[in-house]
C-alpha cells in the first residue's frame, strides 16, 4: 500500500507523465487508481487517489488531438473514470451501467477519444462513493486558437469537502437519520435569542410553521463536519501559488466536492470571470462568486501589490472554509477571514409546486399574531386580510396594502413575487390557489433588503451577497463569448421535477428513483428544452453527460453553455440541449448522496448522424 504525502506548496499538481506525444495530434497517458492516505491536518483517513495522490494529476490535452488514457485499477473493488464536461463517444464516458461495465480490480482499461473543445474540466470516479473518498483530478485543454484573454501564469484551484467518514458510511448514516450531520440546527438557545428579538409569539409561530412540515430552515448542508481543501490542502496546510506583482494570473476554479457549494473571494482583488464550465463567457468583473458542485469558473486576477492574498472559499452553509494563498514569495500566509453567519431558508425556498399547493394550510395564518411581528411596522399592516387570497387574482389582494409595509421590501414577500422566476411561464400560474398557501414567513420580511437574483426564489434566504461589498456573480451575468449553436426554437419541452423525501433521504426526479424509472429517450437532431422544477428545499447541480446544456438566463443568443446547472430551492430553471451525441448518457444531480439516493436518470439518444439537425457552428476556442 502506497503511503504518499500530499503535494508541496507551490506545485500545481503532479503533471502527468506523457508516455508519447506520437504522431501529430496524439498523446498517451497513464493513470493508476490507488488507495491513498489522506491527511488534512484535521483528520487522517484512507481514501482513493490517482497515481498515488489525491487530488489526481492535472491532465493537459490539446484541442484537436486524439488522446489515449490507460487506467489501471489497483483497488480491490471495481472503479471507473468519467471525464466531466468532455464531449466524446458515449463508450468513453466512464459511467458503469451506461457507458461500460466499469474497470475490474487489476484490470487496465484504455480510453481513446478525440479532443474537440478547450478549457478547464475535471475527471472523477463514477463508482460508488469513490469520488468523495478522493478520486478526482483536473483537466486543462489548450485551445487551437488564441483565447480572448491574456494572462502571465495560471493555477488550478480545485476544491473538495474531505470528510473523516467514508462516502458509503455517510450515505448509510443519512439514510438512517437525515440530520445525522447537521450541527447547525435551531436550538432552544436560538429560540430564546430569537424570542427576545422578534417576540415570543412570532418565534413560536415560526417554529410551528416549520415543525408542521417537519422541515428545518437550517437544512442547507446535508453533510457537515468536512474539512474543505484547495488542491488537497486545508487552511493549515495552506496551498500557495506564487505570482510576480503586476502579473495577470488565471485561476481555474473547479468544485470537486461531494456536496458543498463554496462562495469564493480574494479580499483586495477583483476577479474577472472569463470562462464557465470550460466555455468562454463575455468577461465580467466580480468581487465574489458561488461555485456549485461540479462547476468550473476561470477567472483572471491582476495582483499589483507585493503581498499575500487570500483565496478564500466559504461553504454556502457557512459551516467551514478554506484559505489558499497567492503570494510573491514562498512561506507567506494570507489572513483567513472569519465565517459569516449561517443562513436560514425561508418559506420562499420551500419547494412550492405551482400546480399543486396542497399541504399548505392557509387556515393557520389567521392564528398569526400580527401584533407581535417585530421589525414590521404594525400600525401600517392593518389592511392585511389573508382570508381573501384565493387565486392569484391581484384584484383580491386589495386588502393587503403592500406599499405600507415599512421596512419590508415587498417585492420579496415570500412566495408571492413570481415575476423574478428565470424563464418561468407566467401564463401557467393563473390556476394557483392561494387560499392554500400556508405560513408566509413574516419573520424574514423585517428590514431584509437582500439583492434579488433571478436564480433564487424571491425572498430566498440563500441569495448570496459579497462579503466585502461589491458585485456577486449571478447566473444572469453569464453570456457566451461565442455561442456553440445557432439560437433556434426548442422542438419540445421535458419537465423534470426535482423531488425528494428529506426525512427518508430519498431523492428522485418526478417522484421516481433511478432504479424504478424509465430512461429519458431523445431523438438525435432535436433541441430539447428541459424545465427543472425544484420541489425540494435543497439546491441541486444538475449534470447532463455528453451534451451541452444551454442555460436560459434571458440573454437570448448569448445564453451561456454549461455542463452543470444549479437549481435553487423553490425555483424553476430552463436549459436547452441540441441532441447531437448518439448513445446513452447519465443525467443526474451531482450531489453525491443525492445521486446515490436516486436523483438520476439514463438518457438514450436514438438515431445518428444521418438525421437532419441544426448544424452546430464550428467549435472554436
Amino acid at each position, binding site marked *: 500500500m502506497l503511503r504518499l504525502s500530499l503535494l508541496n506548496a507551490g506545485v500545481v499538481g503532479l503533471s502527468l507523465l506523457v508516455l508519447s506525444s506520437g504522431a501529430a495530434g496524439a498523446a498517451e497517458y497513464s493513470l493508476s487508481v490507488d488507495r491513498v492516505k489522506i491527511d488534512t491536518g484535521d483528520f487522517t483517513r484512507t481514501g482513493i487517489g490517482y497515481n498515488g495522490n489525491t487530488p489526481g494529476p492535472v491532465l493537459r490535452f490539446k484541442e484537436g488531438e486524439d488522446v489515449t488514457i490507460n487506467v489501471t485499477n489497483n483497488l480491490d473493488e471495481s472503479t471507473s473514470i468519467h471525464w466531466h464536461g468532455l464531449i466524446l463517444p458515449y463508450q468513453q464516458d466512464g459511467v458503469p451501467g451506461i457507458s461500460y461495465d466499469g474497470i475490474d480490480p487489476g484490470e487496465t482499461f484504455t480510453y481513446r477519444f478525440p479532443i474537440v473543445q478547450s478549457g478547464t474540466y475535471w475527471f472523477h470516479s463514477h463508482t460508488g462513493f469513490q469520488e468523495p473518498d478522493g478520486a478526482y483530478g483536473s483537466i486543462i485543454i489548450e485551445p487551437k486558437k*488564441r483565447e*480572448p*484573454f*491574456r*494572462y502571465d501564469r495560471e493555477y488550478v484551484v480545485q476544491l473538495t469537502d474531505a470528510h473523516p467518514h467514508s462516502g458509503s458510511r455517510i450515505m448509510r448514516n443519512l439514510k438512517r437519520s437525515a440530520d445525522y450531520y447537521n450541527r447547525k440546527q435551531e436550538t432552544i438557545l436560538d429560540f430564546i435569542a430569537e424570542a427576545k428579538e422578534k417576540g415570543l409569539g412570532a418565534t413560536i409561530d415560526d417554529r410551528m410553521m416549520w415543525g408542521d412540515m417537519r422541515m428545518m430552515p437550517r437544512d442547507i448542508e446535508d453533510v457537515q463536519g468536512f474539512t474543505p481543501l484547495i488542491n488537497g490542502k486545508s487552511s493549515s496546510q495552506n496551498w500557495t501559488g506564487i505570482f510576480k506583482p503586476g502579473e*495577470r494570473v488565471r485561476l481555474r476554479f473547479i468544485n470537486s466536492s461531494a456536496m458543498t457549494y463554496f462562495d469564493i473571494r480574494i479580499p483586495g482583488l*477583483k476577479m*474577472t470571470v*472569463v470562462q464557465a464550465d470550460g466555455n468562454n463567457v*463575455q*468577461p*465580467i*468583473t466580480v468581487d465574489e462568486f458561488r461555485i456549485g458542485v461540479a462547476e468550473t469558473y476561470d477567472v*483572471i486576477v*491582476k495582483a499589483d501589490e507585493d503581498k499575500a492574498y487570500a483565496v478564500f472559499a466559504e461553504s454556502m452553509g457557512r459551516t467551514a472554509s478554506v484559505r489558499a494563498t497567492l503570494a510573491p514569495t514562498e512561506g507567506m500566509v494570507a489572513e483567513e477571514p472569519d465565517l459569516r453567519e449561517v443562513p436560514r431558508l425561508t418559506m420562499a425556498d420551500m419547494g412550492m409546486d405551482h400546480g399543486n399547493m396542497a399541504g399548505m394550510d392557509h387556515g393557520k395564518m389567521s392564528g398569526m399574531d400580527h401584533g407581535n411581528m417585530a421589525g414590521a411596522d404594525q400600525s401600517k399592516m392593518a389592511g392585511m386580510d389573508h382570508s381573501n387570497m384565493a387565486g392569484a387574482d391581484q384584484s383580491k389582494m386589495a386588502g393587503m396594502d403592500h406599499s405600507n409595509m415599512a421596512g419590508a421590501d415587498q417585492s420579496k414577500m415570500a412566495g408571492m413575487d413570481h415575476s423574478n422566476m428565470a424563464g418561468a411561464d407566467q401564463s401557467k400560474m393563473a390556476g394557483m390557489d392561494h387560499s392554500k398557501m400556508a405560513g408566509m414567513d413574516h419573520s424574514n420580511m423585517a428590514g431584509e433588503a437582500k439583492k434579488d437574483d433571478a436564480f433564487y426564489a424571491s425572498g430566498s434566504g440563500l441569495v448570496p451577497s459579497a462579503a466585502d461589498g461589491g458585485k456577486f456573480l449571478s447566473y444572469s451575468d453569464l*453570456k457566451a*463569448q*461565442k455561442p456553440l449553436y445557432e439560437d433556434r426554437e426548442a422542438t419540445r419541452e421535458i419537465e423534470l421535477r426535482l423531488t425528494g423525501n428529506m426525512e427518508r433521504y430519498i431523492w428522485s426526479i418526478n417522484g421516481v428513483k433511478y432504479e424504478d424509472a424509465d430512461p429519458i429517450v431523445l431523438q438525435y437532431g432535436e433541441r430539447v428544452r428541459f424545465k427543472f422544477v425544484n420541489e425540494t428545499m435543497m439546491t441541486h447541480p444538475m449534470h447532463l453527460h455528453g451534451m451541452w446544456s444551454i442555460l436560459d438566463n434571458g440573454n437570448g443568443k*448569448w445564453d451561456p453553455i454549461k455542463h452543470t446547472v444549479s437549481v435553487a430551492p423553490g425555483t424553476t430553471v430552463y436549459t436547452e440541449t441540441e441532441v447531437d451525441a448518439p448513445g446513452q448518457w447519465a443525467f443526474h444531480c451531482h450531489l453525491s448522496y443525492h445521486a446515490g439516493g436516486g436523483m438520476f436518470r439514463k438518457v438514450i439518444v436514438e438515431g445518428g448522424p444521418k438525421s437532419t439537425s441544426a448544424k452546430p457552428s464550428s467549435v472554436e476556442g
Partner: protein
Amino acid sequence: MKKRYALYAAAAVIALSLSSVPDLVFADAGHSKASKTGSPGKASDVSRTINVTMSDNFYEPESIAVKEGETVRFVVKNAGEFVHEFNIATAEMHKAHAPEMMMMVEHGVLEADRINREAAKKMQASMGHGLHDAPNSVLLEPGKTGEVIWTFPKKTELEFACNVPGHYESGMVGKIKLSH
C-alpha cells in the same frame, strides 16, 4: 504700473494652478485634452500610420513604439465580433473611464456586439452625456474602421486599451513605448 503687474501675476498664478489641476477636471477622464497624455494631432503633422486590428479580446500589435512629440495616425479596424474601444490614456485614466463604460452598458447603449444609437440619444437627453467622439479614442462596432490622430507627449506611461467592461481585465491593453 503696479496694476498691470498684478494682472500679469494673477494670470500667471491662474495659468499655473490650472495646468496643475488633474486631467479629471477637464471633460471626462478618458477623453482628456490635457498635455500630459499628448494632444489631438493634425493630419498634416502625421509622420506615419500604424494599423491596429482589434479582435476578441486583444490588439494586434500588442505594443506600439513611438517617438516623443511624434504625431501618429492610427487606423483601427475591429476584426472581432464584439464592440471594442481603442483608447490612448494613462492606466489611471483607463481605470476612471471604466465606470462610464459600465454605465453605457447599463443604459443599453453598449451592447455586446453593437452600439445602440437610440439608447445613446436617450442617455444624452436624460444624463447630459452619452456617446461622444473623443480625439484620443474610437469605439467601433464589429467590422468597422476608425481613426485616431494623436501627438505624443514626453515621458508619460501611456497605454492603449479597451474599456468595454471586462476587456481591460482580460488583457486588452498594450503599452505605448515612448522614445527620444
